[in-house]
């Protein structure tokens, strides 16, 4: 894992002091809220429905046990004993006091963490594959490149007042576990025909009110020009992205309105110019970063599992994933207990996960964009012991990628922008399917819920998506089908008129019934939908 040196540490420490000063100036009345807001947002501090909310960056979703422990301690010391892991692989605290914010940042900096650029119109925390460094199918570990970009994007002097927020994802496998093409820039590390490693750039994806899939604009950028190319992409955006309308300000709109070809042409021109300026960090920096992500000392061990305990066997089947070393697996800790709040974890649970990571996973954890936690490197021999401890802490739900593994944004229970609540839907749907026993039969089924058009809950990318809308002051829900955030990326389509809360829960059952009746061998819900189209689902939903 990456470790700060004195430069990284000094930078974060300086930022804590800067923010302490800014917060004090706000409390002293030297700054108005209008002036303070962009500054607090640059430090991840929002004002939400009930209180201030602090969003902590977890770079490329990777953290160690010390960091996870600190997150748990902060939840207990400054918040109400819990935090919310998000689809952006970050953590949010819901009940923060402005007076405490600088102290929390200071506590975070002690474990090499921060909340910098987790909000505001700047380059946000960079996301990546949650199985990076463990996946059997990756070309190389994408995180050194993500780290290089993290450094480049931190306090970028030119790109701190962009037209709108900017999100970058980096992956290095054909399987896309990071919704790469739904980011402002998606980067896939690839090999060219000559066998050299480089980066494919996809620009202009996103969700929100106008979801778009990013087109590829460059097949291969040599690694010693990666930062320069990103800089060119950003400069064209900073200069020409729309600023007249906040809803049209994301780069996806620029690429769409300008056309991917013209955007690419301008980027290439800027790129050629910037190459002469020498903005690329020395290649030695990448070489310095790489060893931090070297494989831990894997040992050969048993490769098979005693499946005599059926509950354990079910968890193994559902929640463990093949590892590049055949004596290991990646184990997913579900933050989706039946009837629970997706992504929430208590301080105690965080500390327990930290302990387990130390004991069983070379001190590493990952946050998934599906709001679960990964222990990336677990010995097959240790699985039973691990599972036993997880079960005891209500962290053993065997439901990865099933209909119980629901993504839900905070919704109207916490979020000031919401139209409707998301969490209660997730709770009731997971309870329903746990009760009717169909979870297993349904197989992979990604259900994603957002409480408003901003799509923080990825509803556009759900096999089944639910969007909360406001219907004359009451909560209403639109259902959509056929989205995917993976390598077979697609955007979901709305089924038709919306439903009330009970209605949409019933509607989810109805569409799963259609699937079970019409699926062919081996088809997932998504495959069946793609084969038969919307009509049969519509008929079942609306023709009574």
């Amino acid at each position, binding site marked *: 894992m990456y470790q700060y040196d004195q430069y990284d540490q000094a930078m974060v420490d300086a930022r804590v002091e800067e923010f302490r000063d800014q917060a004090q100036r706000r*409390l002293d*009345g030297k700054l108005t*809220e209008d002036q303070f807001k962009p500054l607090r947002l640059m430090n991840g501090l929002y004002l939400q*429905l*009930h*209180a*201030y909310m602090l969003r902590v960056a977890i770079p490329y979703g990777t953290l160690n046990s010390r960091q996870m422990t600190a997150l748990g301690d902060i939840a207990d010391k400054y918040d109400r004993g819990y935090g919310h892991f998000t689809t952006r692989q970050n953590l949010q605290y819901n009940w923060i006091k*402005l007076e405490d914010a600088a102290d929390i940042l200071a506590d975070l900096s002690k474990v090499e963490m921060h909340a910098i650029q987790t909000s505001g119109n700047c380059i946000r925390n960079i996301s990546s594959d949650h199985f990076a460094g463990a996946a059997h199918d990756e070309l190389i570990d994408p995180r050194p490149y993500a780290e290089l970009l993290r450094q480049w994007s931190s306090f970028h002097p030119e790109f701190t007042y962009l037209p709108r927020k900017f999100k970058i994802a980096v992956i290095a496998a054909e399987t896309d576990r990071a919704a790469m093409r739904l980011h402002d820039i998606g980067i896939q590390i690839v090999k060219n025909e000559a066998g050299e490693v480089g980066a494919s750039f996809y620009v202009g994806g996103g969700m929100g009110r106008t979801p778009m899939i990013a087109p590829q604009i460059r097949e291969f950028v040599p690694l010693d020009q990666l930062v320069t190319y990103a800089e060119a992409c950003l400069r064209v955006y900073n200069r020409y992205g729309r600023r007249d309308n906040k809803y049209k300000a994301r780069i996806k709109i620029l690429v769409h309105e300008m056309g991917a070809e013209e955007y690419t042409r301008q980027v290439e021109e800027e790129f050629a110019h910037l190459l002469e300026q020498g903005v690329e960090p020395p290649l030695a920096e990448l070489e310095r970063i790489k060893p931090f992500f070297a494989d831990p000392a894997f040992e050969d061990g048993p490769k098979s599992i005693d499946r005599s305990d059926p509950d354990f066997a079910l968890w193994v089947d559902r929640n463990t994933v093949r590892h590049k070393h055949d004596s290991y697996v990646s184990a997913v800790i579900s933050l989706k207990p039946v009837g629970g709040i997706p992504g929430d974890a208590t301080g105690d649970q965080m500390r327990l996960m930290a302990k387990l990571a130390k004991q069983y996973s070379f001190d590493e954890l990952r946050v998934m964009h599906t709001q679960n936690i990964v222990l990336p490197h677990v010995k097959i021999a240790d699985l039973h012991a691990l599972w036993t401890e997880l079960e005891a802490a209500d962290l053993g739900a065997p439901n990865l990628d099933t209909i119980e593994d629901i993504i839900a944004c905070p919704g109207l*229970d916490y979020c000031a922008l919401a139209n409707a609540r998301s969490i209660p839907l997730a709770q009731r749907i997971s309870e329903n399917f746990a009760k009717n026993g169909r979870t297993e039969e349904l197989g992979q089924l990604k259900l994603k819920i957002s409480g408003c058009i901003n799509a923080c809950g990825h509803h556009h990318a759900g096999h089944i998506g639910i969007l909360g809308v406001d219907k004359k002051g009451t909560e209403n829900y639109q259902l959509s089908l056929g989205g995917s955030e993976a390598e077979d990326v697609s955007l979901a389509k709305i089924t038709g008129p919306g439903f009330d809360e009970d209605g949409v829960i019933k509607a989810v059952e109805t569409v799963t019934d259609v699937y079970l009746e019409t699926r062919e061998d081996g088809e997932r819900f998504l495959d069946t939908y793609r084969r038969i189209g919307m009509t049969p689902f519509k008929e079942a939903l609306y023709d009574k």
Partner: protein
Amino acid sequence: MNILTGNDLKTGEVVWWDGQNWSLSVHDAVDVGDMGEQILAAEEAARRVNVPYALVASRTEEGVRPAHIKDRVRALGPTVRRDLAVPTASKTGWDWVI
């Protein structure tokens, strides 16, 4: 009735204008008639409240009830964490929110 709400600048807590001061209970909210803008400007300038706004509510047997569901959630707390409800508002019960 027209009532005023905002968040406490220091703590972020949801507060309601009771005519003199900012209260944690929605039921203390008073009708400010058409004085809303004036009070908000003064209170914000005095840094006693952050991002305040006026809203419509009605007085019911269970106390003051904001017209919009969002403000009722603010008044009581997240419906999915009833253990964290604002204590002074809890006389209403959760059906009140929805």
